[in-house]
């Protein structure tokens, strides 16, 4: 084994792993406020990517397309909250699980009908030429993924810590009833978390599409790994998903290089099974005992 090749594989895998981390972070946002997650999150990634592609084809420059795509993702997040989650939560039912899956299927069919079944390239002004950093070659495109992921997560964390609305978000996460007594609307806070989660999913789609192409099934593999990352890291540590996401990305890339591309999915699934068996609350998670 050539150490420089290992390094090369690990770095480009870890950069892709940040996309898993970003999608997993989207799960954490809604789980914090409502203890629910959108099982159709992958379809949000995909539909937002298609929408952003359409914006690009309409002639919108990249830096205007990105906020447009994020806004669209936020709106989709609100649709999921309103149509799939709110009623179930009000009745203390777990119906949001099935409803969010159904909404995902709906988005999937809609995307196939609107944009077709083919995978399509996603144009970007960011160059795919490699540059040499610390002995490994990375492309500006791969670096843009890292910058985008860390920037949006950093901004959201800053929002949570520095603004009163963000502190209210944290208060609802800590104790929904007590937050209501402060005059904070829990319903609106849950809406906000779904909008943020949708925007985060859209950004994941925009960042990954130039590398993987856009197609109706583009997110099915991504979402499985994002789940693994969220479960392994725990549903309440943003730092944890970044670390686990990068580690998983690196492992996958090494597995597919040394063992063959058929082994690509092995590390994620192994980690998932191990985590569920050994530490179901996640490596960085807090134990929550839920009586049923």
């Amino acid at each position, binding site marked *: 084994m050539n150490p420089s090749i290992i390094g090369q594989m690990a770095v480009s895998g870890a950069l892709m792993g940040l996309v898993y981390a970003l999608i997993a972070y989207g799960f954490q946002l809604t789980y914090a406020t409502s203890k629910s997650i959108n099982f159709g999150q992958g379809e949000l990634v995909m539909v937002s990517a298609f929408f952003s592609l359409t914006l690009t084809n309409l002639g919108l420059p990249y830096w205007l397309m990105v906020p447009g795509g994020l806004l669209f993702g936020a709106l989709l997040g609100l649709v999921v909250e309103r149509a799939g989650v709110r009623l179930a939560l009000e009745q203390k039912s777990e119906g949001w699980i099935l409803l969010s899956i159904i909404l995902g299927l709906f988005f999937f069919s809609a995307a196939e009908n609107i944009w077709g079944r083919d995978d399509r390239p996603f144009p970007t002004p960011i160059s795919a030429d490699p540059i040499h950093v610390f002995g490994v070659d990375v492309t500006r495109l791969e670096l843009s993924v890292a910058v985008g992921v860390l920037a949006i997560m950093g901004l959201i964390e800053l929002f949570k810590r*520095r*603004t*009163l*609305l963000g*502190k*209210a978000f*944290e*208060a609802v996460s*800590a*104790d929904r*009833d*007590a*937050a*209501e*007594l*402060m*005059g*904070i*609307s*829990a*319903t609106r806070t849950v809406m906000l978390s779904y909008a943020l989660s949708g925007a985060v999913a859209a950004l994941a789609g925009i960042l990954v599409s130039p590398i993987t192409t856009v197609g109706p099934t583009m997110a099915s593999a991504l979402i499985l790994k994002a789940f693994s990352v969220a479960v392994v890291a725990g549903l309440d540590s943003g730092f944890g998903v970044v670390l686990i996401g990068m580690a998983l990305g690196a492992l996958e890339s090494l597995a597919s290089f040394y063992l063959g591309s058929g082994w690509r999915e092995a590390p994620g699934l192994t980690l998932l099974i191990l985590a569920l068996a050994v530490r179901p609350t996640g490596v960085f998670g807090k134990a929550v005992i839920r009586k049923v």
Partner: protein
Amino acid sequence: MLIVDDLHAGYGASEVLVGTTLTVKPGAVVALIGANGAGKTTTMRAVSGMLRPSRGRVVLDGKDVQGLDASRIARLGLAHSPEGRKVFGPLSVEDNLLLGAYGRLPKFLGFKSGAQADLDRVYGLFPRLKDRAKQASGTLSGGEQQMLAIGRALMARPKVMLLDEPSMGLAPVIVQEVFRTIRRLKEEGITLLLVEQFAKSALEVADYAYVMERGRIAVEGTPEELGRNERVIAAYLG
């Protein structure tokens, strides 16, 4: 200031409140006493909107509020410091206090300067909270958490404050401190509905008191009147 009329509420099929009626006049401290399970905490929860009443009225400052969301009722001027204190454990002491004033502060930036006068007032009442301003509130002692819960409710500048079992689980010396604080708030003219296990201490600070039994008010009167009522003495003051 607060009128509760024929309030019915409960959990699922079991009704806990079966027609509770009480009044809190502006500037009055009113005590609500009674045995465990009589419905004192349920009354508080039904008034503040944590629990939706099935029948009856709650009038806050001339406005019907029964059936509204708790957050709505809070913004209309009711601050409920709940049983078990319920501070936001992962958040700092200061953030807890700032969130107490959530309804009237700017939501993004500049919120701290908007609340500085109220922060100073609460820190004046509870100097220990100032020392621990940056500490996660979950790491405070029970007594300090109770001070924080009271301070957080004061931050809202409420028209009426509900204070549920402030002495629960605290050492006697801390309980005395809590009652000293309540007395001080009374001198400042706060309107307060107080639920307490320690009926004696509660009657000492109250202007008026209600005794609850099985979901309704059984006896009411000034502390002097209750002090002469043999049934009340036997059950709660003995």
